[in-house]
């Protein structure tokens, strides 16, 4: 972001006060803090306006494609390390359907991409896109596939380096805003003209190095095409890491505008490509295309993406409530824990290990762990008693006994007083649960 002094230099310096601030400098300070809009100044010159918009733009442009509820946003990242703030837009994963294998195969790839969705810790994680590629197959098949895919919900990537065929495909897309793949040094001018005409985002790739890539991006931008995605070379994981790091650093630390765009990596399905996809999720690929990969790999990859793109300041939570582990009845043991997802999953897994059915009461603590929420006063005998009340525990279970985490043994007395239940202090670490449950249930 520009400083107040940078902005001040571009203002008319009339101190007219029409912006409701006494001086232009005061107005500049408000602008630098993003408290007011530049439009409040009636006298700002068009040149200054462009310059200010340019310098105020995010270091990496936000580019979106697709339409409707599944449309994806990429780019607009501000960090090199997630712990410095967060990564905002999870890597878009897409499957490639190649016309070399015929229309039927393309159709089945489309269905595979549609179906690749999993629910995990209360969120849907899925393959976000389908890429249709023209290689050695028939152009009619390719266009037919575009027509079918454009009518479906998944955001679309159209892959051909032939500008004429790309134009035919674009004409079939209607409102489904596809990503056009790709402009290369060989077809650059005609692809650029096409992207400018239809206003769809364009991938630039196939360059010899990052220097050439940045020059083409700069050229495109000057020609008025700003929705760009950059595809650096990825011959090895080492090269991929180097290019992706260079682009991210240049954009964020050097404010180097020609590389301030989302990035893309196109892979196959070899073992090394699979691991490169995992690398891209961690190290700055905005979009990754794979051939449809086996679920044994896809699910862990999507979980990795979910983990890496979790906001470090906002823990993943589970919903408060009474959960059953196995098929508990009115005589089964009752335990409680907090709604920090890691705590919940760990405790749940350890109860499952005991093979003893049990009730697990999850108390809402804004996603904090047992110790943290206890220290912060969010986990109190009162909040536990209230959860017992709300969940009507006593109607479901007549044991009248509550196993509490060993870390909060101090709340035993008060909890007993509030609930009338017998309090059993559990282990300090949930790994001790199987042994303990066996002893109290046996």
């Amino acid at each position, binding site marked *: 972001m520009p400083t107040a002094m940078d902005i001040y230099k571009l203002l008319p310096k009339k101190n007219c006060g029409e912006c409701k601030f006494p001086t232009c400098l005061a107005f500049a300070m408000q602008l630098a803090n993003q408290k007011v809009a530049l439009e409040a100044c009636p006298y700002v010159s068009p040149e200054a306006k462009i310059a200010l918009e340019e310098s105020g733009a995010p270091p990496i442009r936000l580019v979106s494609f697709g339409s409707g509820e599944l449309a994806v946003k990429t780019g607009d990242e501000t960090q090199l390390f997630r712990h410095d703030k967060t990564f905002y837009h999870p890597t878009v994963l897409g499957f490639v359907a190649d016309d070399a294998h015929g229309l039927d195969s393309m159709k089945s790839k489309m269905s595979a991409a549609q179906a690749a969705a999993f629910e995990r810790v209360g969120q849907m994680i899925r393959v976000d896109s389908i890429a249709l590629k023209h290689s050695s197959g028939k152009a009619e098949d390719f266009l037919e596939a575009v027509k079918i895919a454009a009518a479906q919900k998944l955001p679309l990537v159209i892959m051909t380096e032939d500008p004429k065929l790309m134009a035919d495909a674009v004409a079939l897309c209607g409102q489904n805003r596809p990503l056009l793949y790709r402009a290369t040094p060989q077809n650059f001018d005609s692809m650029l003209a096409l992207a400018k005409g239809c206003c769809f985002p364009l991938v630039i790739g196939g360059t010899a190095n*990052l220097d050439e890539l940045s020059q083409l991006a700069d050229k495109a931008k000057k020609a008025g095409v700003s929705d760009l995605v950059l595809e650096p070379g990825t011959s090895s994981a080492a090269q991929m890491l180097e290019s992706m790091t260079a682009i991210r650093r240049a954009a964020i630390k050097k404010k180097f505008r020609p590389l301030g765009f989302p990035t893309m990596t196109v892979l196959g399905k070899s073992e090394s490509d699979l*691991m490169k996809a995992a690398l891209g999720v*961690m190290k700055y690929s905005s979009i990754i295309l794979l051939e449809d990969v086996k679920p044994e790999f896809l*699910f*862990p990859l999507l979980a990795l993406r979910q983990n890496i793109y979790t906001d470090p300041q906002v823990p993943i939570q589970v919903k408060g409530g009474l959960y059953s582990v196995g098929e508990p009845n009115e005589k089964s043991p009752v335990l409680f824990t907090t709604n920090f997802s890691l705590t919940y999953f760990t405790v749940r*897994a350890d109860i499952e290990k005991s093979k003893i059915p049990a009730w697990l009461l999850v108390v809402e603590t804004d996603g904090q762990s047992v110790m943290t929420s206890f220290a912060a006063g969010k986990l109190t005998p009162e909040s536990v008693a209230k959860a017992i009340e709300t969940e009507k525990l006593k109607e479901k279970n007549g044991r009248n006994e509550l196993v509490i985490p060993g870390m909060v043994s101090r709340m035993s007395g008060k909890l007993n007083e509030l609930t009338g239940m017998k309090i059993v202090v559990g282990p300090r670490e949930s790994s001790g649960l199987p042994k303990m449950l066996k002893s109290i249930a046996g």
Partner: protein
Amino acid sequence: MGFDIPKERFPGRIKEVSIGATKEQGGTRRASLAVGGSNGLQFHKFESESPHGPLIVMDVLDTVRVVPEQLMHSIGPVVKEPVEWAKKIEREWGADICVLKLQSANPEEENRSVAECEALVKEVLKSTTIPLMVYGCGFEEKDAKVMEAVSNAARGERLFLGLAEEKAYKSIAAATMANGHGIVAFSNLDINLAKQMNILLLDFGVKPENIIMDPLMAALGMGLEYSYSVLERLRLGALLGDPVLQMPIVCDCSCAWAAPEALEDNPQRGSVELRGIYWETMTAYAAVIAGADLVIMRHPQAVVKLKAALADLKGGA
């Protein structure tokens, strides 16, 4: 004018630590393996040097009690024979280092005696030639005795003994110091605690070149993002010049097999064993990308996959 890659130069460097001792050095290992020594972010070879790639440690457990059922089959009959298991990871599965986890010393389970633990360590040393690390069962009083015995029995081998924790480090530190071994300093996902552990050990008299840190690797889906960021921050802190953070890092990725999602039956997510293999591979891959110098692994096929990925990250042949 060409585009220049914006490069980062750091004032700090990770300490070089060697594990295992050869005959000349007073041990019986075929090699003493060095880790650490890097002056940049992991695999950023365009701007830094990393003389020693991440090493692969494979674990050997002395009781089947803690081995998931699905793994029994992949590891095979040797799962019941720790000495045979150790031979296998060296000769067939390509481990750089072996870590023997003496879980059966647990006084609440098998409660195997100190003498039996010591005998097992001796037998593993006799049957293998790769460097060895030995972990206790996590019960302070028992581990104090086991580690003392192991340390004496393996004098000169330059074992790495673990895990030293904030509230239980003195006896194990004393055991390593007595016979020239190294120590693994454990901390629970907390960069300040990781630093504190190193300070405690240094104050106690352990030499910095005898310490590696274990900041707790959480498996994929089980809080991996916390570990990932702790690792990145530890590595950056070390490179920015904090000498108390410059110890190499070991991440125990066998924890992937304790993640329920890695092993639950769910046809939509594919076969259990292969999913588990990728679960472990990806956990270890994230660990090395974020900064681990050593990863502890369990499944031979996960090791194969990780090794190929490491070669690719180093730029191939």
